[in-house]
C-alpha cells in the first residue's frame, strides 16, 4: 500500500498525513465478496469510518481557526514595528494611547528607538532590533500562511473521503434493498 498521496488508476489514495483514504467501490457485489462482509457488517464498518473522519475534521477545523486568528495578529505587529521604524528618521516621539485594563487607557510617549521587544510565548520576551523584529515577524507570518494552506488541503482531502464514504453507504444500502426486492419477487414467482 503506497503511503504517498498520488492517485492510482482506480483513484484510490491510500492515505494522506495519517488520514486513511476511502476506498472507491466500483461494484457493490464485488466489494462485498472481496471484503467477505455481509451487508450489515459492511455498513457498520463504513459508519465507524465516517465517525473517525468526523473526529479528525473537528481537530483540523480547530487548528484552522487558531491559525486564522494568529495571522491578523502577526500582521498587526508588523504594522506597529513598521510605524516605529518610520518615526525613527523624523526625530519626533510617537505618542500613543494604550489599554491598561479593560476600558482604561493611558498615554505613552515612545522616543526614538532602535529596538523592540517581542513576546515569544511561554512567558519569554526578547529584545530585537527593528530590522531583526521585522524579519522574525515576517518569517512567522509566512510559516503561518504556509501551514494554513497545507491544513486547508488536508481538510479538502478529508471531506472528499467523507463524501466517498457517504455515497458508498448509500449504495450498499440501496443494493441490499434491491436484493431483497429481487428475492421477494423470485419467491412470489415460485409460489404462483
Amino acid at each position: 500500500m503506497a503511503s504517498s498521496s498520488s492517485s492510482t488508476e482506480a483513484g484510490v489514495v491510500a492515505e494522506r498525513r495519517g488520514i486513511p483514504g476511502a476506498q472507491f467501490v466500483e461494484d457493490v457485489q464485488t466489494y462485498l465478496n472481496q471484503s467477505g462482509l455481509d451487508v450489515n457488517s459492511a455498513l457498520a464498518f463504513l459508519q465507524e469510518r465516517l465517525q473517525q473522519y468526523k473526529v479528525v475534521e473537528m481537530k483540523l477545523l480547530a487548528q484552522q481557526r487558531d491559525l486564522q486568528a494568529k495571522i491578523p495578529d502577526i500582521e498587526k505587529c508588523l504594522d506597529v514595528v513598521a510605524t516605529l521604524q518610520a518615526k525613527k528618521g523624523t526625530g519626533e516621539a510617537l505618542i500613543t494611547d494604550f489599554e491598561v485594563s479593560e476600558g482604561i487607557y493611558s498615554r505613552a510617549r515612545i522616543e526614538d528607538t532602535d529596538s523592540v521587544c517581542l513576546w515569544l510565548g511561554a512567558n519569554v520576551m526578547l529584545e530585537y532590533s527593528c530590522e531583526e523584529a521585522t524579519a522574525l515577524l515576517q518569517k512567522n507570518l509566512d510559516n503561518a500562511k504556509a501551514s494554513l494552506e497545507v491544513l486547508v488541503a488536508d481538510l479538502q482531502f478529508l471531506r472528499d473521503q467523507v463524501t466517498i464514504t457517504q455515497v458508498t453507504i448509500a449504495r450498499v444500502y440501496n443494493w441490499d434493498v434491491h436484493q431483497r426486492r429481487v428475492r421477494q419477487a423470485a419467491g412470489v414467482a415460485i409460489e404462483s
Partner: protein
Amino acid sequence: MQQQQQQGQSGGSEMEVTWEDQQNINKFGRLNNRLHELEDEIKIAKESNDNLEDAGNELILTDEDVVRFQIGEVFAHVPKDEVETRIEQMKEATSQNLEKLEEEKESIIAQMAELKKILYGKFKDSINLEEE
C-alpha cells in the same frame, strides 16, 4: 438506460456510480464548502469597507489636527493628513479584496450549476444537491 435506473423510489434502485461521478460529487461538495466560506469572507470585507467609509466621514467632520489612529493594539497620535492617506489605502485594499472575492463567488456558482446539470442528468431523484 436511465429509465431502468429510475425504476425504484429513492432507495432500492441499482445505481451505477462511476469514479467520474464520484469525483464530480466530491468537487460539488468542495465548491459548496468554499462558497459558504466566501460568503462569510465577503460579509466581513463589506463590514470592513463600511467601517472605513464611516471613519473617513468622521475624519472630515473633525476639526482636530491629531487623530488617534489604531495601529495594532494601540492608538497612535497621527496627524490628520496621514490618517486620511492611510484610510484611503486601506479602502483601496479592501475594495480590491472584495472584488476578488465576488469574482471567485461568481465562478464557483457557475461551476456548481454545471455540475448540478451533469449530476441531476445522471441521477435525477436519487441525488439531492440543494441546501438543507
